[in-house]
């Protein structure tokens, strides 16, 4: 009963206190997951202080972290940089940010999602907002993922550090890194560095997966100045560089993916009794991505496909409360330039190179406002209402690119403005063991750079060349969600469904009269809009405390996607996961079973074949050694895919098999 009271206390406090707090303070896993499951539209994956303790594999990739969330699937094209699908929708429909900063991936084939430019070791948490509630930093249908990085505060705690290293048997991945921080009373400074290097991995049954190697460096630093009690400044830079990244599911690899992400933030706290916070940030980032086929022996034609994006932006957010209301208001804007081209080298050396623009110098200007109010009516009822609107303008700034798109659209003008709107309301009722939540929302998004202006982008999944359509209307969605949680002293269960009805759904449609450019492609698709599409997501999450130190938990997820009676591609079949966890003193042991049923509904008309059923088994063991007050050594070890099963899931591009049996060892030394 105590636990329940605590839970409810936390739930209420979450309405008035900033989100970060409970993630830092909660130590009880059960309570944490309870709160997470309560918060329908916000799931916090990793806690700040106990990141190391909570995750069974601390130095796993960020992809694995995100995938452990039921709202997310990771579309894998290799061992590196998977694309997050949120609520069953690909990344065009979601907004992915790092500390609230908009960053545009520079790869026309989505080989560099934003999530690939941060490291797990500098991540504090991922805020996942489902649907319209994620519209704070941009128009979205699926929701938003904000990767929040750790930083120190000016708490005068002096020097702290961490050294870590990891090794994985399957692809001989080596991980080394360090994290140093200094905190004074007026100043703090954090720096961390991670290096990863992996060879090709082997799928189950020792099947070698060529071109699955990667090397990645990530350097991140944050400096903070406390001007006085209420004013502070924070400057931050991330430099991430990946080289020699193989994409076994694609016809090309990547020789360089590089991002420089910088920001300067000003924070003004306790402005008045009713306004706690005013946070303003200006940022700039540059992403460069170079695709490379020089290691592939058989290509019909050699080509270079570099891409780059530059984004500058700012946001300013006010947060406050008065009486029953806890509110936030955000104004944000960004400017992006996306440019990608393609040079093809004819086999006949006497011929000139062939050159075209695949992203024809597209400039995007976005300005939006978003407001949210959480109202606590009484002990049983509370409501969250939010509303936002934005202006979105994009233009093809390169004449060469404009000329090429005018082949398809002779009437195309240089620029186009859009007005985006969103609004949502959700209410929660809490009584006794029951937490009931329901919500309704409306959201719109603008087409992505590729959907609007992409030029002959080859998709190796359906083997079509895609040409953008600058005349697409905004995509709109009405979203309905419902969640019921029952909390008993040792057992809790949560069932959640959400349904998106999407209007003017954007998808590629084959154009029979067009001839593909890519050698071996099936045809050409242009982006068109279907009157409506339906997406249904359902999940059931349970946990049961067998003993004080032994917990059984499990979850089941199912999604369904339809477009005019056809099944949408890349939709998760029934997937399950069960975990038995032992945690006592400084020991932690876990055994986990995960699997999926055969994909019975799949996008047959979109070139998809069904994913087969699978079950895999994982186990981990961890121990923390407290060497002294200051020094701790954490050892985590485990085996993934113990039975060395050869399998692939619905979200593996071209059904590339996932990793076979893998032993790992993670060492963390804190000082």
């Amino acid at each position, binding site marked *: 009963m105590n636990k329940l009271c605590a839970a409810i206390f936390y739930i209420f406090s979450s309405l008035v206190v900033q989100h970060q707090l409970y993630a830092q303070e909660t130590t009880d896993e059960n309570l944490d997951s309870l709160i997470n499951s309560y918060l329908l539209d916000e799931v916090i994956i990793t806690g700040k202080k106990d990141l190391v303790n909570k995750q069974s594999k601390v130095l796993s990739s960020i992809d694995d972290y995100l995938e452990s969330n039921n709202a997310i699937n990771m579309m894998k094209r290799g061992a590196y940089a998977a694309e997050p699908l949120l609520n069953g929708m690909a990344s065009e429909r979601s907004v992915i940010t790092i500390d609230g900063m908009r960053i545009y991936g520079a790869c026309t084939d989505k080989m560099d999602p934003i999530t690939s430019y941060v490291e797990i070791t500098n991540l504090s948490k991922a805020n996942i907002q489902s649907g319209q509630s994620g519209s704070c930093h941009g128009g979205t249908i699926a929701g938003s993922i904000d990767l929040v990085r750790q930083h120190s505060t000016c708490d005068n705690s002096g020097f702290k550090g961490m050294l870590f290293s990891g090794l994985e048997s399957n692809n001989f991945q080596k991980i080394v890194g360090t994290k140093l921080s200094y905190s004074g009373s007026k100043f703090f400074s954090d720096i961390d560095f991670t290096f990863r290097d992996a060879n090709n991995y082997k799928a189950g049954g020792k099947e070698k997966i060529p071109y699955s190697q990667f090397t990645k460096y990530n350097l991140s630093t944050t400096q903070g100045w406390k001007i006085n009690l209420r004013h502070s400044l924070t400057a931050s830079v991330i430099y991430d560089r990946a080289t020699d990244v193989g994409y076994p599911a694609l016809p090309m690899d990547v020789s360089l993916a590089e991002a420089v992400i910088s920001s300067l933030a000003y924070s003004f706290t306790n402005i008045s009794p009713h306004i706690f916070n005013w946070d303003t940030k200006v940022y700039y980032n540059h992403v460069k991505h170079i695709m490379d086929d020089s290691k592939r022996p058989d290509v019909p034609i050699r080509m270079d496909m570099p891409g780059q994006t530059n984004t500058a932006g700012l946001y300013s957010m006010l947060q406050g409360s008065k009486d029953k209301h806890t509110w936030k208001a955000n104004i944000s804007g960004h400017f992006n330039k996306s440019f990608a081209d393609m040079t093809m080298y004819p086999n006949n050396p006497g011929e*000139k190179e*062939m050159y075209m623009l695949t992203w024809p110098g597209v400039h995007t200007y976005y300005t939006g406002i978003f407001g949210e109010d959480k109202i606590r009516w009484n002990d049983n009822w509370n409501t969250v209402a939010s509303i936002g609107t934005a202006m979105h303008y994009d233009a093809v700034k390169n004449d060469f690119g404009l*000329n090429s798109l005018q082949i398809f659209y002779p009437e195309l003008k240089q620029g186009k403005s859009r007005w985006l709107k969103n609004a949502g309301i959700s209410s929660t009722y809490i009584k006794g063991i029951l937490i009931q939540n329901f919500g309704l929302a409306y959201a719109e998004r603008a087409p992505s750079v590729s959907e609007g202006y992409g030029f002959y982008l080859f998709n190796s999944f359906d083997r079509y060349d895609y040409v953008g359509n600058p005349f697409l209307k905004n995509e709109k969605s009405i979203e309905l969600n419902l969640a019921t949680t029952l909390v008993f002293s040792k057992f809790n269960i949560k069932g959640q469904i959400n349904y998106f009805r999407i209007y003017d759904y954007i998808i590629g449609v084959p154009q029979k009269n*067009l001839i593909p450019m890519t050698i071996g492609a099936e045809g050409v698709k242009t982006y068109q809009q279907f009157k409506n599409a339906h997406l249904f997501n359902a999940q059931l999450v349970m946990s049961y405390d067998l003993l004080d130190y032994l917990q059984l938990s499990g979850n089941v997820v199912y999604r369904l996607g339809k477009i005019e009676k056809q099944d949408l591609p890349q939709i998760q079949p029934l997937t399950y996961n069960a975990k038995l966890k032992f945690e006592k003193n400084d020991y932690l042991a876990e055994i986990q079973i995960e699997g999926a049923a055969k994909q019975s509904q799949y996008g047959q008309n979109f070139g998809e074949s069904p994913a087969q059923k699978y079950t895999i088994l994982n186990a981990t063991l961890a121990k923390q050694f407290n060497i002294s007050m200051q020094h701790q050594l954490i050892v985590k070890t485990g085996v993934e895919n113990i039975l060395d099963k050869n399998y692939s899931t619905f979200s593996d591009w071209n059904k590339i098999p996932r990793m076979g049996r893998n032993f790992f060892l993670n060492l963390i030394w804190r000082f």
Partner: protein
Amino acid sequence: MKILKSISILMLIFIAMSCKKDDIKIEKPNELDGLKLVQSIQNDPFIIDLYTTSGKLEQGYNEIFFTVKDVEGNLIENVESTWSPLMHMMDKNHACPYSPISLVPNSKTLHKGYIVFQMAGNETEYWDLSFNLIVQESPYTVSGKINVLPTLKKRVTTFTGSDGKKYVLAMVQPNLPKEGLNEMTALLYKMENMMMFSPVSNYTINIDPRMPSMGNHSSPNNVNLTQKSSLFYEGKVAFSMTGYWKINLQVLNESSEVLKGEAVTDENESSSIYFEVEF
């Protein structure tokens, strides 16, 4: 103050001078701007200077400009002229399609016309060009050997149609191809005999641009060539990237019967008649 004054006076003078220069330019535009001298043909008492935009005569369609001078170099006005190109081959002579000559609008001395050379000259075979001039009611002939260079890319094709007649088809535009939609124009002549070629009307020229080095892909939204208001066949050709393009052709008569050329299919990579473009 004095310095300021003198500076402003200097500036005024400078501005006045620059204005003056501009004025001169506007008054006397050089009608040869953008043209390069190819060669001069001299038969007393006249010299004819030939100009093209490239400074060369090439196999295929050539827009040719010329002026007539006397030996002192004075440009002659009121010249009536006709021309006739002739190919001297080892075993025979033949002419080629060409236009009548006209004065360039607003000029009294610059003439223009076009000639379609269906072949280039070489060491043993050469073209010559004769002009028949009427100056102040007296006839003169000026003629000389001209150097017609071969082109790397095919811009003209000669063929025998299924009607048994011989044709010359030459690409006029795009002269400077670019990525995107290009205006395309061509000329089609029927060979009446070795010396006479006449323009053909109301045929259709189907185009299918392909990139043989890139899986022989095509481009969308091309417009086949038809005659609009002149002799020229007009249409549009789309290049979705730079590089080498082969524009496969089919020539259809008034009743839409194919006289020459084959459709490009998976089995048939190229038509027997085509133009080439590389940029």
